[in-house]
């Protein structure tokens, strides 16, 4: 059993996302520590990709900033290694399949294991393509996090039954980004997921307000917030640390 389970032992989990290297790799480490200090239960670190097709404009821009700053997969591994001397918080990567494939699955997951990465989310690797790297990841103690979308319907059962770590339920159609309203019938999706799996279920895409956090945490095991945090980084740059702390603290308290 991976460290990911620990994230769901402290009430409802607050899962925070940021893009590594935005605005710099040093700042990413600092921002993650602020999030941990504020009570974030699990950190998702985005490895920037040139063409993030599941992302909305906020995270797309963060990817551009990070790559322009010279961020590479190797620098991110070093940052996580350093981070691991300071915190035990569960950490997962979020990236697209090509950066992982090109790095070499063996090398990539071996490094993940060495530096203490607990899982990975790969939005362009659906259930049917999991054989790309599922076994290699497992051998290196990295959980491949499964995603379930509002359109998954009859697929939910199979995906959920095979899930490890946690299940990432996508709240809405479309790409990542803050939404004023989440219209999907999450209740019925979560019910199907829960009936097929005992793995914790977290909901992401669009969540940014305290009200949304409260409401969605009532029916799930945790909430995932990305664009709202990245937006703070976009606005405050190097000075974003304290704003990230305040924001993530208020979100975690809202769902306790």
């Amino acid at each position: 059993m991976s460290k990911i389970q620990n994230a769901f032992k402290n009430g409802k989990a607050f899962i925070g996302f940021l893009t590594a290297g935005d605005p710099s790799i040093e700042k990413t480490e600092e921002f993650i520590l602020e999030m941990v200090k504020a009570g974030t239960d699990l950190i998702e670190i985005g490895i920037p990709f040139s063409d993030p097709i599941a992302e909305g404009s906020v995270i797309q821009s963060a990817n551009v900033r990070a790559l322009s700053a010279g961020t590479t997969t190797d620098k991110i591994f070093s940052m996580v290694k350093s981070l691991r001397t300071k915190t035990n918080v569960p950490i997962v990567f979020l990236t697209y399949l090509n950066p992982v494939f090109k790095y070499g699955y063996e090398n990539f997951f071996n490094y993940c294991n060495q530096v203490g990465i607990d899982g990975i989310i790969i939005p362009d690797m659906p259930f049917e393509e999991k054989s790309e790297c599922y076994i290699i990841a497992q051998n290196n103690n990295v959980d491949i996090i499964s995603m379930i979308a509002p359109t998954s319907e009859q697929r939910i059962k199979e995906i959920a039954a095979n899930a490890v770590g946690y299940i990432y339920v996508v709240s809405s159609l479309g790409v990542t980004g803050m939404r004023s309203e989440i219209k999907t019938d999450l209740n019925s999706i979560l019910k199907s997921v829960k009936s097929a799996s005992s793995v914790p279920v977290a909901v992401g895409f669009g969540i940014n307000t305290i009200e949304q956090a409260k409401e969605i945490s009532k029916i799930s095991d945790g909430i995932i917030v990305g664009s709202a945090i990245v937006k703070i980084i976009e606005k405050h740059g190097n000075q974003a640390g304290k704003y990230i702390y305040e924001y993530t603290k208020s979100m975690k308290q809202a769902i306790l």
Partner: protein
Amino acid sequence: MSRGRYGIHGGQYIPETLMNEIINLEKNYDFYKNDPTFIKELNDLLKNYAGRPSLLYYAKKMTEDLNGAKIYLKREDLNHTGSHKINNVLGQVLLAKKMGKTRVIAETGAGQHGVATATAAALLNVECEIFMGKEDVKRQALNVYRMELLGAKVHTVTSGTMTLKDAVNETFREWTTRVQDTHYVLGSVMGPHPFPMIVRDFQSVISKEAREQILDIEGKLPSAVVACVGGGSNAMGMFYNFIKDKSVKLIGCEPAGHGINTDKHAAAIAKGTLGIFHGMKSYFCQNEYGQIAPVYSISAGLDYPGIGPEHANLHDTNRAQYVPVTDNEAVNAFEYLAKTEGIICAIESAHAVAHVQKIAPTMDKDEIIIICLSGRGDKDVASIAQYRGININE
């Protein structure tokens, strides 16, 4: 291993939100491709609307000038809307209608696929939105206006390199946002399965006709068929029915831009490496960390960092050969064909013409080459003038 493999290439690497939709698409396609009513309707559109079969024209002057193999041009430029793109689009939009879709979206590079999609959407009465990179909107202003005349809404894409790759990204994003009533009319033999198969099938009419035509005219098969390759739809269409004819060389011409030893090209086979992007495993121009490279070609339609998975496999198995052709060679060929045969072809197609200029003189006079002239060149006249330092807008 998922469906839709060509050797190690292909697959379905897309977000979960789209998975049920592409499964549904494959199911519908498998049904309608054998449905007599669908086949009849599509054939009627191809004949009476698009103007098929397209001519197989003997380029006598070019043949005499190059003094080698006999050269034929498969005249896809004479199709309605001016390129091979209409073959695929009529099939896909008709299929979308049968599936109950009321809206189609598409990416476009040169604008040819966008114009073709807008045309089919107008004819078949569905809503149409086209995504086009800002760079291409500039290079191909005429085609943008054509799409608008046809009733389509054109979105200018300002992310990334603002060319074809980014237009594809944005169209995928739009599709995940509104998938229920919308079909993505992918324009090339790329993307997740079943697109490479569907587009290839609809484009294979090119080689089906060409094979019959050349046997009819010459009584024998060609020594080589040659086509330009970006994503690779006209080339796949031109190659497909010749794949089993082992004596026929299949040659794809990749955009080498300023040269494959510079950083300004889009030659995915010559310089790319294995990767996974836009739903498929194939060859891509990318860096050591798997970041997709900003590619370049004078031709907006070939300005794409990857190549369709079936081409990647034809390359792996040595069934087809892929050669780089530079901007300069293509522009020279563009002008050559205009002066020699009185045909202004698309700058994309001119890449194939350029390669034939090189190989025809080395071949015997009883050998035959067929070039797929994938599109007409009206859209390129202004940028060719600019390449030659002439401003025709003054």
